[in-house]
């Protein structure tokens, strides 16, 4: 993939300075180290950092159509670009390159905003028309590719990452209270809100057009589900065959639609094993596979990863991650995520993509999305049990079902177990209301707000942070309880956290592109159309996918219990060996400068965790882990983006495209 940035003036004034555009795009160097490009006229400037994957020879950007009507900067891939090109040719469009970028330009000329729904891909792009001064921004359905926007001083600025916007000294840098509030509830800020005041994230599946002084926002895709439907066993068989076929097409397309070799991540779980298996026969020569191992036994899945690699006959690479590795790399991880996180899990993903790059591979298949569209997560099973319990809240028999999904409850004595059950009992009366499924998770994260300092708590309390439940689709209430939970999981966590903080940002931090067969539009459309019982059958998660996998994945992988991807959290940052920055970030003066957390409360948390560690008293609780990582990462965001120096001028940028057409600045407005 790549990085894009640009500035467009919205009224009278000067065009964007060349130096500004260069220093913006220099901030995106990690996303596209293969070449920089610049387009600039008296209204607009577009800049591009390229990671060359398709059309290595003529795919440089910015690029225009033959008559220079539209210019584009594009991050991502349009996997069906060959088919679209054929169709566009038959309608009289001409092509000068074999890139997917040029297909977007002509598709927009032909179909306007209807073109987005024809793309099978992952994208964030900006189209600019110098003659009409129109700017079109668009982002893919699930939010694989990032896009941020800032308006101010008569200009609109956009970029793949916030740090490029902050390269402009006219863009102010402060925390956004809503963005922080949302983080400590939904685990991530919810687009269009970001952790930074004035910086907007273009929502996945939407576009925006700036034209003649007006701004038009539109939706080209959103998850949708049928009303509750019943099904028969023969439908399940048909659905299994259909899913197998669509997944195979999606996996192959993501391997063949590249002019460089595409590798694959293997987590040791079902999803990535299956897509690697389905895609492998399309990879010319040997597939390169990549896996994460952990020094901590509880997180390690290497035996299963090796099993799949052996079956694939792939050239397998693995890295082993220690607590110290996580602590050391964490500031860099937050530099890329540009948001606070409540888990360290993005850190190993950054180390993994570094290994991919070191092996000379630029793109990888990964299994993300399966747990959301096919109901793999415990949160879906938990919600089903809570709904069953809610029918008779006084029952002590019904909550025994939690033993089935949380085996650690099995060994607990009566009273301890009742305590655990009491946690899921909260909000039982909300059954049938939107958000019922996510109540326990959101309440858990929101409890971390007790670490807020008084001033921040007052500001946060005064501003009622918007949330996902404030703008649900009209049809939401007609969907099955499982579909409602899937919608919330997809929009609140997959897009802003899994695909962003833990996905794109850690992949592109090392110049590696991720490709996601489960997020193929045909795969998603099928899965979303199926009855809930196909996906979550009783409490059997991803039931349908397991039927598909029977023919492809080693039996040991199918038989193992699903292990959520986790990494060691607070323990990485405790003890004498912790890096110096940890104490620096958690110091009273630094905490006060950021103005979010109460130094006394943070000190007490650190003291508790250090004592626990020194005395060897078990592992930190989930709440303490999330509090520590959330606070540390918020502090690192503040340190690196709010008080850190602005980006320096980029003297060393070498441009492969450098276009400044003659002045055509007769104001049309």
């Amino acid at each position, binding site marked *: 993939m790549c990085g894009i940035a640009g500035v467009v003036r919205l009224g009278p004034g000067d065009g964007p300075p060349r130096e500004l555009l260069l220093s913006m795009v220099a901030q995106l160097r990690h996303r596209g180290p293969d070449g920089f490009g610049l387009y600039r006229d008296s209204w607009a400037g577009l800049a591009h950092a390229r990671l060359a994957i398709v059309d290595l020879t003529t795919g440089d950007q910015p690029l225009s159509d033959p008559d220079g009507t539209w210019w584009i900067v594009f991050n991502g891939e349009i996997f069906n670009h060959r088919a679209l090109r054929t169709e566009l040719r038959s309608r009289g469009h001409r092509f000068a390159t074999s890139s997917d970028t040029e297909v977007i330009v002509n598709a927009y000329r032909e179909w306007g905003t209807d073109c987005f729904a024809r793309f099978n891909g992952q994208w964030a792009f900006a189209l600019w028309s110098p003659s009409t001064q129109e700017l079109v921004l668009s982002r893919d359905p699930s939010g694989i590719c990032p896009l941020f926007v800032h308006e101010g001083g008569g200009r609109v600025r956009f970029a793949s990452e916030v740090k490029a916007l902050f390269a402009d000294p006219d863009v102010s840098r402060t925390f956004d209270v809503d963005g922080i509030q949302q983080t400590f509830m939904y685990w991530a800020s919810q687009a269009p809100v970001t952790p930074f005041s004035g910086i907007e994230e273009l929502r996945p599946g939407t576009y925006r057009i700036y034209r003649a002084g007006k701004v038009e926002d539109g939706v080209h895709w959103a998850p949708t589900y049928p009303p509750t439907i*019943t*099904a*028969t*066993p*023969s439908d*399940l068989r048909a659905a299994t065959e259909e899913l197998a076929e669509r997944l195979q097409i999606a996996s192959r397309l993501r391997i063949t639609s590249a002019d460089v070799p595409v590798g694959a991540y293997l987590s040791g779980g079902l999803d990535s094993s299956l897509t690697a298996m389905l895609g492998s026969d399309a990879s010319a020569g040997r597939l390169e596979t990549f896996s994460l191992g952990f020094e901590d036994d509880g997180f390690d899945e290497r035996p299963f990863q090796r099993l799949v690699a052996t079956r694939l006959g792939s050239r397998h690479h693995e890295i082993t991650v220690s607590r110290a590795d996580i602590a050391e790399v964490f500031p860099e991880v937050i530099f890329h995520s540009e948001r606070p996180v409540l888990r360290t899990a993005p850190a190993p993903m950054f180390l993994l993509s570094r290994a991919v790059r070191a092996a000379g591979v630029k793109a990888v298949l990964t299994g993300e999305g399966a747990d959301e569209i096919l109901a793999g997560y415990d949160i879906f099973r938990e919600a*089903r*049990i809570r709904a*069953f319990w809610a*029918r*008779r809240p*006084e*029952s*002590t*028999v*019904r909550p*025994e*079902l939690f033993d*089935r999904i949380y085996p650690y409850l099995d060994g607990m004595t009566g009273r301890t177990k009742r305590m655990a059950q009491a946690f899921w009992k909260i909000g039982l009366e909300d059954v049938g209301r939107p958000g019922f499924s996510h109540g326990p998770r959101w309440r858990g994260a929101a409890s971390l707000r007790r670490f807020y300092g008084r001033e921040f708590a007052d500001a946060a309390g005064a501003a009622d942070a918007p949330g996902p439940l404030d703008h649900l689709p009209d049809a939401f209430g007609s969907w099955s309880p499982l579909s409602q939970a899937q919608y919330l999981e997809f929009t609140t966590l997959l897009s802003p956290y899994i695909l962003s903080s833990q996905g794109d940002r850690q992949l592109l931090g090392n110049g590696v592109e991720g490709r996601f067969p489960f997020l193929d539009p045909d795969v998603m459309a099928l899965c979303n159309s199926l009855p809930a*019982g196909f996906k979550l*059958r*009783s*409490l*059997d998660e991803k039931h349908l996918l397991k039927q598909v996998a029977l023919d492809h994945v080693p039996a040991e992988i199918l038989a193992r219990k699903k292990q959520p991807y986790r990494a060691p959290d607070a323990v990485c940052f405790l003890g004498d060996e912790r890096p110096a920055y940890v104490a620096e970030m958690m110091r009273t003066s630094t905490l006060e400068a950021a103005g979010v957390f109460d130094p006394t409360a943070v000190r007490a948390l650190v003291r508790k965790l250090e004592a626990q560690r020194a005395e060897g008293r078990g592992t930190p609780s989930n709440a303490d882990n999330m509090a520590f990582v959330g606070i540390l990462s918020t502090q690192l965001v503040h340190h690196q983006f709010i008080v850190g120096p602005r980006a320096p001028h980029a003297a060393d940028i070498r441009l492969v495209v450098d276009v400044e057409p003659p002045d055509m600045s007769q104001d049309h407005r």
Partner: protein
Amino acid sequence: MDADALRTDLRSFIATNFLFTDDAVADDMSLLESGVIDSTGAMELIGHVEDLLGVTVADEDLVAANFDSIDRIVAFATPHMQ
């Protein structure tokens, strides 16, 4: 709903949700012993019966004697049906 309608409904629900075939189970077959359902399957089956009858089952009635076969479910449910 009468007992016959309930019986027909249960046969089809069990076939669709637990057997994954268009076959049927015998009305007196033990669903637990035969492995057709386990505790999570029981949750689904009991939830379905509750939906049908518009009642919720008390803890003391949540026992195999009431839910282990189609015959037993029908016997348990009959007093609850209008």
